[in-house]
């Protein structure tokens, strides 16, 4: 019965279709009991149509048809069908952040979106009610909840969205958005912010591949700073993010403190972990283990990174960067804040999920049709009444009022 629920908003009213039997029954009963009148001049009435088989199944076919239609339309009207229609927005919608003054928004649209001024467009406040921009804006709109809500609206699928600025603090991953939205911001950042880079430090005897790797990284990420620490030096978690430790086997206490204070320690399998550190394999990579240690984490390779089968691979710079930065959650967090609106963000709501069924458009037409049918039915029923009134039956013969 789920399909009924998807077609009708109130499918319980579909039982009203059983009422279709009422007019049929009335017409059939009328048929079985024709009007009886006494008529002395019967001898001049021909007898050929005496057999009931020649009679039509129901008389007043049009009247019956109208009555059936009235009942059916009433049932459909009450059960509120949801008509599926492909919704192609007729006009372009601009949703404006309610913190922006209306004049500023209009100025921005005229200056920055000249393609809109030629087309048919309307400007709405970015609020759950999407009121027109001529009305006062709503205060304290939860931008992300509102955007997520509006992402399911078919008529807003291709909207332009004007925000006050284009950088977002956090929580954008809970956002649902339409992939067709076009984002604009009033305050464009003056210089595109480069993503934050981790501060690197090495300790001990670095492997041979480190220098080429670093050169490769510096090519793509200029400004990457690398510090070389002596084995006696104490790494500072506030100045260093990633520490590549290739020193002697027992991990110095200073390095342990660095991890506990929030740093990321990267070692190979030559460093044995203390007993209380619980390593787990990194998902989808069984050559590397990670363990939380205080506020930081320890990334340890299962292989000796001096061996050739560790570093003889083309994607070594990318793979290591991904593996290491995936473990640095504070860095990820900081970089997330710099994420720009020009990138498709949030969870895209697929076109197939859009609510396209609408029932509102159907009802006025059906009410008009119902009234029209009622009028026609009355007209038809009453137009038969005068003929009936002429043929009043004399007392004594049984008469049933005919239709109407």
């Amino acid at each position, binding site marked *: 019965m789920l399909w009924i629920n998807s077609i009708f908003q109130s499918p319980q009213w579909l039982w009203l279709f059983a009422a279709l039997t009422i007019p049929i029954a009335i017409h059939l009963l009328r048929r079985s009991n*024709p009007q009886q*009148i006494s008529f*002395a*001049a*019967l001898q001049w009435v021909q*007898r050929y149509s*005496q057999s009931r088989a020649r009679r039509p199944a129901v008389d007043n076919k049009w009247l019956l048809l109208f009555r059936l239609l009235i009942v059916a339309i009433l049932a459909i009207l009450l059960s509120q069908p949801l008509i599926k229609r492909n919704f192609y927005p007729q006009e372009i919608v601009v949703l404006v952040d309610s913190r922006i003054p209306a004049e500023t928004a209009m100025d921005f649209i005229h200056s920055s979106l000249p393609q809109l001024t030629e087309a048919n467009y309307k400007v709405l406040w970015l609020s759950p009610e999407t009121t027109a921009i001529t009305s006062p804006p709503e205060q304290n709109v939860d931008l992300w909840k509102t955007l997520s809500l509006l992402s399911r609206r078919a008529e807003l699928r291709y909207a332009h969205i004007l925000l006050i600025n284009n950088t977002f603090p956090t929580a954008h991953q809970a956002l649902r958005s339409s992939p067709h939205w076009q984002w604009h911001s009033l305050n464009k950042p003056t210089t595109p912010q480069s993503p934050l880079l981790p501060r690197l430090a090495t300790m001990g005897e670095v492997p041979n591949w480190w220098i080429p790797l670093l050169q490769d990284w510096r090519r793509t990420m200029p400004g990457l700073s690398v510090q070389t620490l002596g084995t006696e030096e104490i790494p500072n978690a506030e100045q260093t993010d990633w520490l590549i430790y290739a020193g002697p086997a027992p991990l110095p206490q200073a390095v342990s403190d660095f991890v506990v204070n929030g740093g990321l320690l990267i070692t190979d399998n030559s460093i044995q972990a203390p007993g209380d550190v619980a390593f787990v394999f990194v998902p989808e990579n069984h050559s590397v283990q990670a363990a939380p240690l205080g506020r930081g984490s320890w990334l340890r390779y299962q292989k000796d990174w001096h061996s050739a089968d560790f570093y003889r691979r083309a994607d070594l710079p990318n793979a290591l960067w991904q593996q290491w930065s995936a473990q640095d959650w504070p860095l990820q967090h900081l970089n997330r804040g710099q994420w720009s609106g020009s990138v498709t963000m949030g969870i895209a709501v697929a076109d197939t999920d859009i609510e396209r069924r609408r029932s509102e458009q159907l009802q006025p037409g059906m009410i008009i049709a119902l009234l029209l049918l009622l009028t026609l039915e009355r007209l038809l029923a009453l137009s038969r009444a005068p003929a*009936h009134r*002429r043929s*009043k039956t004399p007392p004594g013969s049984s008469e049933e009022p005919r239709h109407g």
Partner: protein
Amino acid sequence: MEYLSPKTLASCRDLVWLSRHIAEGVMLGVQHSQRRGTGLEFHQYRGYQAGDAIRHIDWKLFARSDRYYVRETEQESRMHVCFVLDTSASLGQASFVEPSLNKLHYAKCWIASLCWLLSAQGDSFSLLALNNQHSIHMPEGRGENHQRQIALQLQRLTASDHWPDQSQLAPLWQYFERPCQVVLLSDFFEQDNEISHFAARLHAAGRPCLPLQLLIEAEQTFPFDGELKLLNPEANSNSPAALEVDAEQQRQSYLNAFAQAQTELKARFAAQDCLLQSNLIEQPVEKSLHQFIQRHGRLC
């Protein structure tokens, strides 16, 4: 003057008063001499009967005998009109316009009114109401009293059964032995031309009858529609008791057949030198009487 509406006609129970009222309307403006129903020559005393006018009671005789006697006088007869009224069941056909009015009631009013007119001019009249079960004969008489008695008798008549057959008609011929003018009221819905035969035989016997056919409007127009079950008040072997028809389909064929039958009927009576007058009972009695009197000038 205003004619009585069919509803008034149907709802009025006092046929005596009604007939006199109608007759007054018909006679309106007619210059006539004072012609009471009583003559100058004393004829006989007879016992008082219901319907006799109280002023005709001979009070002196009452004082002597302590009985009511009515003094009857003789008047030379000018004409004797014999009303023959068909009281078969088909005369019970009611109008579809005014369902409380049927053909028989109309005929009663018509006869009683004409009797009053005849009594006013001193003619005598008698009544023969017949069907195959009962035949009621009111002998020839004249005057107000006779009209009153005929009206009372008419009031008791009901429509039932059929037109009498030959054997049942045989004893009735005696009523036509004396010269009389027969007025025949019926709907002339015959199975086997039996009413026409009756009229033809009267004609052959030198008693030409003046026929008045009573119809209802629906019989001329067949205004019905839809499915109908038509009940025949006079069912017999030839016509069924009931017929289910589709009125629209039947209308044209019925109207053709009915018009054909009417033409034949009129032709038969025209051959006997008596014009058939057909009246709808929805029309006023006065009009019908007027037309009848004008058509048959020898009557009044």
